[in-house]
């Protein structure tokens, strides 16, 4: 039967403040973090009747315990959505939430449903990377992938080997800029509106309220230079020029454009195209380069059409490799204007939606920009890119 592909829009996105593993969320459950986000989304958009939500996709990398039990479904129930609302769990490591968004967008585009919630959660304090993994012995026996491919920091060192012109000083300078941009964005009140305060309990000190990210820190080139390189003796990757181990959750509202108009929901971004591509697992950080090329090709755009970039800063080196590839300066103001994961944190499967939420805010501030993209590298060698159109675009510059 003939059918039309429908336009999909990003209506709204929220996130918890991101914590440091073992920090402010040490006694908070992972599912409670994402439940908070879902409830806040519904609260911020009272025009949306809860029963109109027809899918809830929640990503988590380690789907064990409070991140298991088909978390999309259980979180929907616990958030108080009607029992008729289905949900599922999804995993593409760091791009979990991004994949949740593209998956439900696909469902909306083909008419399976009109309104969906997509988000992600990772509590790396309760679920350290690699918890419960059981890699197939063939990976080593058949030399399918180098063992270093399973340790993300080691893949970043491997990437440094391939791009020797990216020095440690450059990565540290990029990291410092990320911290400074985030501090400035906080000072100007740019990030606060995305945040959902979370009540946090400590058995020793009682209840508190998490209202800001825990990871950003005051640093300097000197301090960054003095950090250890835990993945390689005399290596280049440090805790300072990489995202940390974090706890946090995100959620976003994806809606068919016609439904958004029917319900009076605001349109923050319109989905243009997306692409996921595999690369060598040993240098997974290069993933966003081919995935961006793919998304651009599908959209019929070139890199010059993109006016704003939200790139996940898993490691400074992989962002710089991306920028070099596309001929973009390290300090280009279009890139991560409010800093990135190096400062804010990267609770793996939740981060994709943070990039989108921030891009949506930039769009509102930049009606001169028509297109923006969100991109990230992914473990086991992948990249993911989503290109968005700014509904506020006024048609002047590109």
């Amino acid at each position, binding site marked *: 039967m003939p059918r039309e592909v429908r336009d999909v829009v990003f209506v709204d996105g929220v996130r918890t403040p991101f914590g440091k593993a073992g920090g402010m969320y040490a006694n908070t459950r992972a599912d409670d973090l994402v*439940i908070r986000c879902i*409830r806040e989304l519904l609260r911020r958009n009272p025009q949306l009747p809860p029963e109109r939500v027809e899918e809830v996709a929640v990503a988590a990398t380690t789907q064990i315990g409070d991140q298991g039990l088909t978390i999309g479904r259980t979180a929907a129930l*616990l958030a108080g959505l009607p029992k008729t609302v289905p949900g599922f769990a999804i995993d593409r490591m760091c791009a979990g939430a991004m994949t949740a968004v593209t998956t439900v967008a696909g469902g909306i585009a083909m008419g399976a449903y009109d309104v969906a919630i997509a988000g992600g959660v990772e509590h790396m304090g309760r679920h350290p990377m690699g918890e419960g993994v059981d890699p197939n012995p063939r990976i080593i026996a058949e030399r399918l992938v180098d063992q270093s491919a399973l340790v993300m920091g080691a893949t970043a060192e491997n990437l440094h080997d391939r791009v020797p012109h990216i020095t440690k000083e450059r990565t540290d300078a990029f990291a410092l800029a990320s911290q400074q941009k985030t501090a400035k964005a906080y000072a100007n009140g740019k990030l606060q509106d995305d945040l959902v305060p979370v*009540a946090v309990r400590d*058995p020793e*000190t*009682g209840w508190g309220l998490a*209202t800001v990210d825990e990871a950003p820190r005051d640093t300097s080139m000197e301090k960054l230079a003095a950090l250890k390189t835990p993945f390689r003796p005399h290596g280049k990757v440090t805790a300072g020029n990489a995202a940390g181990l974090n706890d946090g959750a995100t959620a976003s509202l994806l809606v068919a454009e016609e439904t958004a108009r029917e319900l009076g929901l605001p349109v923050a971004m319109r989905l243009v195209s997306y692409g996921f591509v595999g690369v060598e697992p040993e240098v997974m950080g290069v993933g966003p380069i081919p995935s961006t090329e793919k998304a651009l090709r599908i959209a019929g755009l070139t890199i010059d059409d993109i006016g704003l970039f939200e790139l996940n800063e898993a490691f400074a080196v992989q962002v710089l490799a991306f920028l070099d590839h596309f001929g973009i300066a390290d300090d280009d103001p279009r890139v991560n204007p409010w800093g990135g994961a190096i400062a804010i944190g990267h609770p793996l499967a939740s981060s994709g939606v943070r990039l989108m939420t921030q891009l949506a805010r930039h769009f509102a501030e930049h009606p001169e920009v028509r297109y923006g993209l969100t991109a990230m590298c992914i473990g086991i060698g992948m990249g993911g890119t989503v290109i968005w159109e700014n509904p506020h675009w006024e048609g002047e510059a590109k």
Partner: protein
Amino acid sequence: MSLAAPNEVVTKALLRLVDVPGLDRPAALITLDNGFDHKKPNTLGPGGLTSLDEAITAAHAAKPAFIAVTGKPYIFCVGADLTGLPLLTDRAQALEIGQLGHRVFARLRDSGVPTFAFVNGAAMGGGLELALHCHYRTLSAGAAALALPEVSLGIVPGWGGTQLLPNLVGIPAATQVIIQNPLMQNKMLKPKQAAEMGLADVLLEPADFLERSLEWAAGVIRGEHTVTRPEVDREMWDGVLFFAKQTLDARLHGAVPSANRALELLGLAKETDFATGTAAEDEALADLIFSSELRSGLYAFDLVQRRAKRPAGAPDRDLARPVTKVGIVGAGLMASQLALLFARRLQVPVVLTDLDQARVDKGVAYVHEQIEKSVSKGRMDKGTAARLYGLVSGSVDKSVFADADFVIEAVFEDLNVKKQVWAELEKIVAPEAVLATNTSSLSVTAMAEGLEHPERVVGFHFFNPVAVLPLLEIVRGEQTDDATLATAFAVGKQLKKSSVLVKDAPAFVVNRLLTRFLGTVFAAVDAGTPLEVANNALDPLGLPMRPLALLQLVGPAVAHHVGGILHAAFPDRFGVSENLKRIAEAGKPIVVDDEINAEVADLLVVGDQPLTAEQVRQNALDALAQEIRLMLDEGVVAEAQDIDLCLILGAGWPFHLGGVTPYLDRTGTTERVTGKRFLPAGVASLPA
């Protein structure tokens, strides 16, 4: 501090300064937490109050935007720590307990900085009073219960509750919470009711209760929310209390001093200033802490909370055999009630049998009707109902019992009939299947005689109404083995009943004592005491019902039957009243609209030696003391505590009597009749 409470589990008041979006100064958030999970809820003793006092001081020092108090997960605070009360030796200490609470809580009420209670979970007694002192209250829709249960124990809300509550929610609601609910098997408020009553300013969903509470508080501080509370109607104040007092007197005849004191305090709250009102609370609390009724109440509370959960003399629970199917012999009203209870609680197939199909159908239909009723009242969901419909069935053919692990009979109270039932069943069921009898007076040992496996017969005696009264007398016959007994206790626990182990003695505990007790009343009537005088003679005890009403509930025929059995066993103490026989045979209602039926009174043939009410009462109490002593000597139960537990749970005897042995001890009855007390002084009474 002189208020040493050596066993206090101290609830700490943990202070954290919290940044709340939209406020330029942090809020002071105080968490009450005793360091345990919700199974050991927060309580406040001297240590806890001192911790709260310090937290409030530190909070003020931080110049916060507001001060809020909340609890640990699921629990706000369930009131004063009661463990220290029995250790108090003089009234001055009792006075100090009230004063300390008042002083610390008043700091929340008098605070220049706005104060909030975020009632996240169960809030009772002193915990609820703490919340009442705050300027504003948010309440979680997930809180288990809210209550001021003090009066049920024998004290009054003594940390401001009697003064604050009526001035917040009005006198009718306050009277309900402070007096009526505690005396109705300690009924508690659900959050929705509490919010509708005006106890909280806003009811919030549990999923993000604290976040929303902080946000709401910030809105109040910024002036975005104006909190309006309906004005309290003072016109009706005296009338409501007058009516409450009348109702109370009609029921309890002044036997519960805590209720009367609470009424007086509620009266004061109408116009008296807060300081005077709370000073009166201190005095009332101190008086009541040194009342016999409270000591009995604390003893009874401990029996119900602890002893009932670990029955004395029960065998190792590991010996219990699994019960996967239950058979019920008989399909009458009692059997049908049992079928519903077993199906609901055990969630295993339950089969009813009776002599003919009509009776079986009627029994199953009764169960189905009850299930329908529960669903239509919203007390049971459709899924559970569907499951229960499937579980309960009936048959005239006893072979359906072949795979039952537990068969209980509720047939006519006749030893031969019951023996026949067992003999027939033994050919059908497995050799280990437990055969339980709901007999109220027949010998379990005699019933098991002649069976191939008498060791699996056990008494399993419920009290009417089965769904309401929590007692189960588990009767060990001479040959009952430990595995059978352990299975019976395990089933009792699954049925959510409180089981007491009883020796196979005539009429066990509750029926034997009630029969003896009623026997003295009827002996007085037979001798010529006016029915009215005899019936009202026990009013000063504050029992749940007068003798004739009790007789009506039990049924004169049943009472007469049990009386006959006890008379046969102990003819010198259990007489047979011809008048009771006449009443039983006439089958007329004894009490109509709280009045004795004149037609019944006309049936009586009486002597010419009337007793005074006081004589009737003394005879009844003396008889109880004597009978309990004999029962303890016979080893019917392990200890006097078990007698009290049986009377509280099986006959609804009140906390202020401690069941009954504390009352018999404190009135001197026990020593006069039996030469020594049942319980050492101080256990359920004031220290010697």
